[in-house]
């Protein structure tokens, strides 16, 4: 199982998110990425936690920062990629994969088609932030709202090489990833990356029918030196 880390990056700075609501400042991107490289993490997912308040200027300025990034780990990037012009801007970035989220709720699949043509299917990753309570719902960042499951265009998932299931309620806390999402959502865990609360080591997926393709540890990966080694051993 691949073990990666999620970094939230916006306006040139990284943040930790707790329960999808509370953002704590984390630090400079390069220092974080250099340490994750040193810890031999399998891959790094950089997400701009933008909602309905994103602007082209903010997107451009973050892209300029990201161009300077030096890393020896494979990097996936997403957050606010909402039109074809933005898609073309990504070609200068030192990243392997691109993450799409709000487009999965649209009727139109044009953006995903163009992305596949430009970067190949293996580079397309879907991101589905979800919560189970009070009822199962998915977060559409473009409208900054949780919406019912049936608003998701499941056909669009065929464009994605893998899907990040992001547990918004457990994110940043020590309560464990809600693996029942797999049953509720009827997805093959082997095409999924679990993120949000997976750092809780009691929540082991090894040798179970819930074993995902990969896990992404959020905030806690930097909370102690070489913590990633514990996850390699136990997850």
């Amino acid at each position, binding site marked *: 199982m691949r073990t990666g880390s999620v970094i939230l990056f916006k306006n040139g700075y990284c943040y930790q998110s707790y329960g999808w609501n509370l953002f*704590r400042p984390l630090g400079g991107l390069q220092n974080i990425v250099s340490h994750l490289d040193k810890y031999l993490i399998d891959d790094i997912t950089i997400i701009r936690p933008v909602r309905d308040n994103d602007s082209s200027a903010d997107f451009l300025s973050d892209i300029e920062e990201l161009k300077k990034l030096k890393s020896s780990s494979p990097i996936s990037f997403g957050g606010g990629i909402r039109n074809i012009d933005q898609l073309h801007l990504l070609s200068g970035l030192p990243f392997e994969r691109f993450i799409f989220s709000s487009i999965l709720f649209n009727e139109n699949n044009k953006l995903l088609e163009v992305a596949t043509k430009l970067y190949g299917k293996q580079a397309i990753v879907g991101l589905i932030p979800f919560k189970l309570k009070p009822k199962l719902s998915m977060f559409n960042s473009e409208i900054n709202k949780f919406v019912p499951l049936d608003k998701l265009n499941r056909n669009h998932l065929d464009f994605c090489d893998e899907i990040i299931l992001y547990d918004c309620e457990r994110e940043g806390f020590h309560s464990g990833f809600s693996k029942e999402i797999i049953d509720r959502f009827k997805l093959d865990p082997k095409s999924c990356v679990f993120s949000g609360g997976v750092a809780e080591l009691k929540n082991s997926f090894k040798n179970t029918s819930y074993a995902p393709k990969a896990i992404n540890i959020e905030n806690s990966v930097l*909370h102690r*030196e070489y913590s990633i080694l514990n996850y390699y051993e136990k997850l």
Partner: protein
Amino acid sequence: MKNCKYCLYPKSHPFGMAYSDDVCLGCITHKEKYNLDWSERYSFLEEEARKNKKRTKTYDCIVPVIGDAEDYFVVQEVLKLGLNPLIVSVNSYFYNDIGWKNLHNLITHFDLDSWVYNPEIQTYKELIRTSLRKYNHMYLPWIQLHTSFPVHVAKEKSIPLIIWGSNQSVEQVGKFSHKDSVEMSSWSRIEHDLFNKDIFNLIGNGAQVNERKLNYYIYPENLQKLSKKVKGLYLSNYLAWDPLKQNQSIIKHGFVAEENSYSFDPYERAGSSVYYQIHDLLKFERLGYRKITDHCTREIRHGRLSRSEAIEVESQFIQNKINVNPFFNWLDVSKTGREWYINHKLKKSSNLISDSKIEYKHHNFPQKIKSLLVKSSKPNENFITYGKGIEI
């Protein structure tokens, strides 16, 4: 975004500020102190102590100290946990006679083994000059050593645990929850202790430094490969941290508080010739606020000052002038060099510089603060390179 509606921290805080509903994360995180089950959190600490007790034939843990009041509290708590600590300290060369007395009294009062590292002074001074020139910061070289030398000692002597006092990134700006139990790490050191300026930022650009002399300035690598992995814990994640109250409580161990013309707090960094002097001035120059703002914010959060009282207390100190000459003399900077620095690098704080000795003034504070203060002493001598703090 406006500043926090409760505390006095500006957005320029070097750890990064974030807000939720006009309240800074530092204030939000401080509130955890009133809701957490601290006995449960303390039991985590006891478990760590139990696991690490007698793992080596020598010491159970290292306590890095400078000899100020917080260090007395940390040592007291470490001994309560039944651990046998090695006290490790790096000579900053900035101690006054009170500083040396407090450091040596700490070691002898608690009757502990100690290891004081005296860095080669010419390299150290050259790094300070570079740090001043490039970053308007005079403490970076010492912080590099203070945060890496204890880790070297732990590695070399196979001591599995390092115990620090407070985690400032949690206590000041709430970068993490106490529940995250964040530990010492190379990442955090660079991000929070060194403000993203590791030792390699202090060489080059004209610095006359032999890299062979920088070993202990560099954080050791490959800690995870050691048979006994080195872990660094912060006590403030396991105890409801309250510096002023804690610091007053350790006076019984012989700690000497120092008269302070720049804050009501006579405990924090008592015994330093620079902390409330040139360092405070440079902090104002870089960030736009002084140490008194840290202290007032801390006391607002602990409920001992209202916001308006804090502003009033802050105003008693914020314009107090500083004589920078003793520091530049110690640093072997010529009169013209000093003038160049003041004219070019201390533009915002030029009105805070004085050439004469600053006399201590008595101030008036709200009772909740006054009740936690003690009689303090005046230093007799500053910048003592090697001192003898006690008579045996």
